[in-house]
């Protein structure tokens, strides 16, 4: 029961992090390691700024 609850809480926490983009940088690093091994990845701050700039150049919010 306890482990089940822990599992549920962990799942919710991971969902929250992914849905909000809190873990976006870690995901980017994973992708970078897999796809561009050897090149230096962006720093956390660079990634965040670049991502926001891209996100807000298109239509991401409705009426």
């Amino acid at each position, binding site marked *: 029961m306890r482990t089940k609850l822990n599992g549920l809480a962990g799942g919710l926490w*991971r*969902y929250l992090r992914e849905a*909000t983009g809190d873990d976006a940088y870690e995901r980017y690093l994973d992708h970078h390691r897999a796809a561009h091994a050897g090149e230096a990845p962006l720093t956390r*701050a660079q990634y*965040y700024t670049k991502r926001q700039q891209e996100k807000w*150049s298109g239509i991401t919010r*409705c009426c």
Partner: protein
Amino acid sequence: MPQAALMPRTTPSKLIWLAIAVGGASAIGGIALHRGESINAIWFVAAAICTYLVAYRFYAAWICARVLVLDETRATPAERFNNGRDFVPTNRWVTFGHHFAAIAGPGPLIGPTLAMQFGYLPGTLWILAGAVLGGCVQDMVIMFCSTRRDGRSLGQMARDELGPLGGWAAMIGTMLIMLILIAVLGLVIVNAMKHSPWATSTVLGTIPVAMLIGIYMRGIRPGRVLEGSLIGIALLLVCVIGGGWVDHNEAIRGMFDWSGESVAWFVMIYGFAAATLPVWLLLAPRDYLSTFLKLGVVFLLAASILILAPEMKMPAFTQFAGNGMGPIFKGSLFPFVFITVACGAISGFHALVSSGTTPKLLANERDIRMIGYGSMALESLVGIMAVIAACVLDPGVYFAINSPAGVVGKEATAAVQAITQWGFPVTVDQMEALAREVGEKTLFARTGGAPSLAVGMATIFSGTFGNALLSMWYHFAIMFEVLFILTTLDAGTRVGRFMLQDILKHFWKPIGDVSSYPMTVAASFVFVAAWGYFLWQGVKDPLGGVNILWPLFGISNQLLAGIALSVATGILVKMGKAKYAWVTGLPLTWLAIICTSASVEKVFSPNPAIGFLSGAASLAEKLAAGTLPPERAAVAPQLIVGQQIDAALALFFAVVLWIVIIDMLRMSLRMRAGKPVPPLSEAGYVRTTLDPDLVAVSH
């Protein structure tokens, strides 16, 4: 999708679906046939949820299996172009959250609130039917089309599939809807904030909070979105409480007691600043805050309605459904209820997110039903909650808040007399007591939906959580509405500026340079001035502005939906699915009917309260005859020109819609005759290597 997925396989599951269908039908029947004092809100929630479930389980599944023929072995753009930034195969529930947060704006809260002037029944039925047969279908089919086309935008798809004419129409239509949308949302803010020191000081406080969080998320703890947002939300609550303190402090409350004109200037300056500042400083952090708040409030409202089970006090129909003389906006049930509800039933704007943005996250085609159809069903449920929040108020109170001074008179006694005469009793004492309780000087003539929605929500919240603190709940609700209207406003101004640059570069190349700061400033200025013009016109209009701007917004939003559904229908025909083209063709036909009749009525109606042209003519006549009071005469020339521009715009919307429809029909007929048409621009089949069940949340 295999055949078996279409129908429930086992007897118990058949019985459950039968029960849901019967339950939904009886709830809708109960709502429709009920005549009497009041009806419980739970019926509305039950009717809505059963309708969505049945439609999702059967209609959406059928469309996916037979019409779109989703292929779960086919790699999506997210998989093929995975770049770790915007193209990322994402867990379906996460994508659902993103998509829902993107499509759920202030529209489904405001539109249904305004439409309640006809009574609860017409708006409610259209929200349900419009969503399951129109809005959800549009969102899902466009998402499918874009997913099969490398995540291309609606405008690009219109150009590729219909031709350059369709492409131009989509581009200009999108920019104009943005313009009108921002103007009308600005007006909603003005009517909520004018002469309300509490609301004004709270909203002003949210700006430094957003900037602080922006600096935090970029400089202090880069990318830590969750902790930044939590700190921000706490600070926003402090702003609401601080606003109350300002309101009770005689020495400073006057500084925040702004006229409608001052708030309008603030909104324009704000929009310009937000569009030209770096996004990380203001736009991005405020969006995080407003998204958290929005989802939180939606869940809180749903829970409160279920716990409190409030009674609906609005009648099923009011006399305004028939006589077209409603105080909030003029015009009869047909076509104006369909135009007014807008986003809760079908919103063309969603097609812009369903193409381009969300397809870049889809891990598997089979998620399209849940994310495209399901998100819109949930948005429609938000519309039903807005209906409930408006109808739990005494109808007299609802009309007193929403009727502009130009309709019921400036004095409170005159207003309550007029409203009581309509058959919705209300007294000055009652309105004064309510205003005191929510911490306002007056609630009269706050047209636009936001304040009456806030009173409704505050009533539901304080009823659920204890009767004290009505004023806190009210101002929390106002802050929440203004916050995410401002997000739409500056995100819209930013995108509108890009679109303007994109269009103008065909005439003067340098303006298209989006990386040039002077061009950015110039294009932003032009775009803000354009929507600012309509906002100003709305603020100056003695009939409250909503009467003019909301129908224009509704028409433009349906126009965009019409373009999206035309593109979708054209694609279905080209896919060899002509016999199923009615899936998008039917909602398209209905939109064409309501959009055209609303445009024609708004332009040519001989009633000066409805028709722009006769409105301008009658005002000119009165001005010439000298029968206008001096303060109305002073703004009359502006209003006359304004109404003529509105007429041209409404006509233009109708013409653009028909150009696209005819273009689509022309292409379909050529196709049938075996003549050449632009080829289907679908990307080639690539087999997926992702196990969709493994695209789980992993960190």
